[in-house]
């Protein structure tokens, strides 16, 4: 039995979603982004776990829940290294890295204080773009300003 199987076995869920390889310091942010505070089924959650690749990592196992692509891809904004695993009857039925969505709606605040979305009650909207250096940036649909990762603040 390889290590991965063993690990899944320890806190195995029968059906649901596992999000692995979350940078340790982003674990709580990922929980917030997926609105798991109010989820009533079982959630197993570990952070500060040893990982060969990351040093320390976080993992979240949510039983009886599968996410729509756009919902799960939000976490790519904070944890681009995360892996999404879907489990059905203890078997892995899907495993892939999360990928950045094309746009984000209502979850990020615009960093421009003069943006209309910061002055009036208007849901934010951003296009996810990659600059010439290959870095991910968010471009505000309204004020057209582009913000880099460091400026991302979640609503």
């Amino acid at each position, binding site marked *: 039995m390889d290590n991965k199987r063993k690990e899944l076995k320890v806190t195995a869920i029968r059906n649901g979603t596992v999000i692995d390889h979350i940078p340790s310091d982003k674990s709580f942010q990922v929980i917030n982004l997926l609105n798991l505070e109010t989820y009533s089924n079982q959630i197993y959650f570990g952070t500060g776990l040893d990982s060969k690749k990351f040093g320390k990592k976080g993992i979240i196992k949510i039983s009886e829940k599968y996410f729509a692509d756009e919902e799960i891809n939000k976490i790519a904004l904070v944890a681009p290294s995360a892996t999404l695993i879907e489990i059905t009857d203890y078997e892995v039925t899907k495993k892939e890295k999360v990928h950045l969505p094309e746009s984000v709606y209502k979850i990020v605040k615009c960093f*421009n204080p*003069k*943006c*209309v*979305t910061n*002055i*009036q*009650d*208007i849901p934010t909207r951003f296009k996810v773009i990659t*600059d*010439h250096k290959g870095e991910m940036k968010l471009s*505000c*649909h*309204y*004020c*057209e*300003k*582009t913000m880099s990762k460091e400026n991302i603040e979640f609503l």
Partner: protein
Amino acid sequence: MNELIGRSLVSITDYSKEEIIHILDLAEEFEKNHRQRILDSYVVSSLFFEPSTRTRLSFESAVQYLGGSIIGFASADTSSVKKGESLKDTILTVSNYSDLIIMRNPMDGSARYASEVSPVPIINAGDGANQHPTQCLLDLYSIRKTQGSLDNIHIAMIGDLKYGRTVHSLVQALSLFGATFHFVSPESLKMPSSVKTWIKKAGLEYHQYTDIMDIMPIADILYMTRIQGERFPDPLEYEKVKNSYILENNMLSGSKDNMRVLHPLPRVNEITEDVDDNPKAYYFQQAKNGVYVRQALIAAILGLK
């Protein structure tokens, strides 16, 4: 052009090259005859949430030469906005009373938002530091008129290239026509990298300078902008550079015959008054062209031309 009917204009990039050319062609028609009563019994709203007398008068003159009526306000002090009404509510109310809304608003992105909630088309007359597409259209019109064509011109942009929204839009628009860009500015007010990336993506060239005289023999268009002291983090630096970007008449002697000087106005001191009498000074005519371009835009959006 059917594609323009009923559509808002928020940013110059909302328009394709063909749509821009269509508006400029129409504007040419209005320059020949700007008194046409095609807006008879039409009502246009002019909502200026911050004062901008020049832009407002240009729009109002455009509407009135066409026989239309104008309602609205010239500053937020006299409107319900002062009482705390949301932009959405103002737009939804005013759209009941008019066929088209011209809006100037200090909030960045307000025009895009207004265009999404409004049942009638919006023309953005400036949304904060973001966009001012009719300024861009009148700049394009002025360049085409003085150069005979928009294709492959050498344009020099001078002054505050970092914060100047007019130069950013103009770069985007001229990229459609294959221009070569020459940027002259102090080190701290250089063209932002996002704009330079845009130029590279369009497969075009730009060059950067700090001395205005370097571009004098090359430029077809000299586009002057105002350098504001408050843009400098260090007031000493402003003192050092402030006189380096002032255009005086004697500096124009080595320029091309076809070269023209443009400026979005109002100017403060960046072009000395002795330039005004030089036939290469075009900024007052440029402002006049604004009326024809706005007439063209209104007529196109309302489907009257």
